[in-house]
């Protein structure tokens, strides 16, 4: 009986060590979960800064002047006797 107990103890100890090592190997070869550190760094990645102002030239027609031409209707016709208005700086 004593011998049997001793063998059982050894068996449990060896099985535990082997199970632990087996689990280690399985975990080492399994896909890694997303690590919190990576998430943190992902969330703090700065988006590329947009230029403060875009040139309309990039969306204009050939003469480079007619921005808004995509959505603007034809120029309105002045009503009878209406003077031409022009903003020009002074």
């Amino acid at each position: 009986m004593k011998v049997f107990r001793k063998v059982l103890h050894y068996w449990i100890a060896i099985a535990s060590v082997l199970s632990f090592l087996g689990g280690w190997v399985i975990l080492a070869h399994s896909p890694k979960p997303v690590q919190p550190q990576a998430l943190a760094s992902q969330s703090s990645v700065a988006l590329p800064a947009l230029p403060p102002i875009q040139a309309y030239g990039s969306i204009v027609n050939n003469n480079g002047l007619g921005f808004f031409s995509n959505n603007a209707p034809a120029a309105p016709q002045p009503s009878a006797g209406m003077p031409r208005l022009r903003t020009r700086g002074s």
Partner: protein
Amino acid sequence: METVYLRAMNTDILLAAEGQAEALAAGFIQARQFIEVGERRFSRFSAESELSALNRSAGKWFRASPDLFTVVSLARRFFHLTRGLFDPSILPELKRVGYDRSMDALRELGPAPLFESLLANERPSFSEMDLDESEQSILLPPDMALDLGGIAKGWIAEQASIILSRGATACVVDAGGDMFLVGLPNGLDQWPVELEDPLQPDSFLTTLKVAPGAIATSTVTKRVWKQAGRNRHHVIDPRTGEPAVSDWISVTVTAPHACEAEVFAKALLIAGPGEAEEIVRNSGILLTYLAIDQEKKIWGNAQSMENSYVKATET
């Protein structure tokens, strides 16, 4: 549409209105009178103007007319909103670079020679000016003098438009290309306003569709002269005390009020592409702007494009 042309504030002024002939006639007279009185009050070139009297009183309290007090109060507000890029206290710098007389006289007689004055960082800041609302009084620090040219012109144009609108269904006061528009002309849903080519003033780049409100343009290609062989213009950068150096040569702004359009057109021209967007965003005012560079490219922001306040069509 009935029209009246006059010359005031060193610029050509157009009054135009639709409505009953009799009511319009009275409106034209009253609006014209208001403009002429305003010119006398706000001109820095006349020693008799109230503005000149205010400038002479620097260092002591000056009891102002309601109109002058209003415009100076607005100027202080815009000084802060533009982070000092609009600064009516740059008059010493304007004089130093030769703009010490009206533009008509400057063109005829030539500019004053370059002389030394207080440097921009030595003169008192406009923020040191004090206002007493209950007494309608203004205290300029010693050595401060104001030039209210653009902001006063815008304010006068808007007030004159309001006077004119009492007898009109639609009207505009156009002060040298800076306008205040009331109502809409018969059959139109917006006002067509041409945007002048700053490098070829006899042509225009595009036609803007402008809602009732204000539109103003500031440019470094007008009011230019030479002083001691150096090219000069009237848009002074308060940070340097020198004519502004900017990537843009012209900025057009629409705004609910004429003085806002005037002030921000100048401030954005000085600011250039690096700061303009932030100034507009922080202003809290419904502004749209179009800037033109040396290559005649038109610049603006996404809001300008999406906002239906101003749209442009090809010419």
